[in-house]
């Protein structure tokens, strides 16, 4: 049995930021990461982050990942287990993980779940044909392994992920036939959407996919318009000729371990699904169990970093390490600034329902 001050599940932006802050205040930290590398989804982000105040604005996600990875690997108080998948959290406070054909058992004094999110799927005919991908897989193929997923893509979903991945596909010389979106308006930032429109890709709102066509792999797709109840409008079916269908239809928080821990959970459509009820320091209703990043509600990498810093400090403080209150307050203020304005409206509404 391993013992530690803080165990962190997930080495994405939230988990890495938390580990650095906690270790800096004196905590011993164990990080469990399912992948063989650190950085989570950041390693696929070839685009530059924007924002005005935070230090990472203008940097590419992949460079932010290397920056954090380097710092974490230099820090002697942090022990990283790569290729370790968290399996369970038990009533006696033991965390288990599958690791190197065996099982790790860890008894942490505090726990941070920063496991990220899952991609949602939607049902349509022949949705199991090779050539139907989630947007995360397309980004992994393209940006991590340098493999083009196809030649002509239908993007389903005009949120930020759908828009950004469409742009990255075009940068890689792959044609994007169209972006379809079930909602009456684009969900992502207008600056991304207008860039893509200017490049000649139609964004069709109030549209859905009915079926994938093909015998052994995707050869096309049938799309149609939908009415205000999101039901297909007969007679509006249209065929598109594509070899790849990319689904970017939303994310759900990966909260499985928090259910196991017995945290009070709340359904919040604004935050992507069921999320834990938490206090202002990101501690759940189970004492000593903290959350940060997409697990706490679907947002983006900058807020994940800030939440990670906050949770890392709060966890260290919880078990007696000295943390300056001003530091905690300044992170909270940064988060507030980040979520100000119309774009953060749904996040503010979601958080209002789950913060106690």
């Amino acid at each position, binding site marked *: 049995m391993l013992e530690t001050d803080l165990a962190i599940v997930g080495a994405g932006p939230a988990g890495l930021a938390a580990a650095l802050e906690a270790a800096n205040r004196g905590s011993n930290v164990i990080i469990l990461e399912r992948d063989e590398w650190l950085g989570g989804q950041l390693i696929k982000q070839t685009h530059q982050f924007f924002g005005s105040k935070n230090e990472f604005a203008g940097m590419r996600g992949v460079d932010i990942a290397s920056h954090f990875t380097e710092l974490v690997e230099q820090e002697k108080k942090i022990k990283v287990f790569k290729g370790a998948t968290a399996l369970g959290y038990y009533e006696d406070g033991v965390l288990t993980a599958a690791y190197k054909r065996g099982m790790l058992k860890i008894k942490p004094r505090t726990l941070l779940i920063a496991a990220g999110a899952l991609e949602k799927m939607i049902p349509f005919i022949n949705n199991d044909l090779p050539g139907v991908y989630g947007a995360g897989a397309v980004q992994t193929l393209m940006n991590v392994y340098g493999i083009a997923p196809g030649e002509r893509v239908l993007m389903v979903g005009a949120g930020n992920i759908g828009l950004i991945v469409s742009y990255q596909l075009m940068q890689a010389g792959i044609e994007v036939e169209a972006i379809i979106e079930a909602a009456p308006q684009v969900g992502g930032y207008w600056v991304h959407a207008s860039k893509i429109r200017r490049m000649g890709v139609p964004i069709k709102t109030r549209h859905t996919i009915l*079926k994938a066509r093909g015998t052994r792999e995707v050869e096309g797709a049938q799309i149609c318009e939908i009415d205000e109840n999101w039901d297909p409008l007969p007679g509006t079916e249209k065929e598109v000729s594509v070899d790849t269908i990319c689904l970017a239809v939303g994310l759900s928080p990966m909260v499985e371990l928090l259910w196991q821990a017995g945290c009070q959970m709340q359904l919040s459509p604004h935050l992507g699904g069921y999320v834990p009820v938490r206090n202002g320091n990101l501690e759940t209703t189970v004492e000593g169990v903290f959350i940060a990043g997409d697990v706490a509600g679907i947002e983006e990498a900058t807020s994940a970093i800030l939440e990670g810093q906050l949770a890392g400090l709060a966890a260290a403080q919880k078990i007696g390490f000295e943390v300056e209150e001003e530091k905690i307050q300044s992170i909270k203020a940064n988060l507030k600034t980040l979520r100000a304005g119309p774009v953060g409206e749904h996040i503010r509404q979601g958080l209002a329902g789950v913060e106690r």
Partner: protein
Amino acid sequence: MKDDIILCFCEDLTREEIRTAIKNGARTFDELKRLIRCGMGACQGKTCEDMIQREIMDITGQKRDELPLPRRRPPSVGISIDDAGRGDADEE
């Protein structure tokens, strides 16, 4: 292709098979699981749960916040009995 809509990819279950089980009386994800094994494969329901819950809601009229969720217990992903039985992994 047979023009199927697959909801549970791991166990290869179509929307029709799931709808039939609901019409035959299954009212929760866990009941469906015991009848037809949905959510019992490699992903442990992480891909199919939302889509299957939606089918249950559509047919039974339950609302999302009152619809029972599948019971969550370890392990959250598959592990072989051999690996689990080996106990402590190499802790270096």
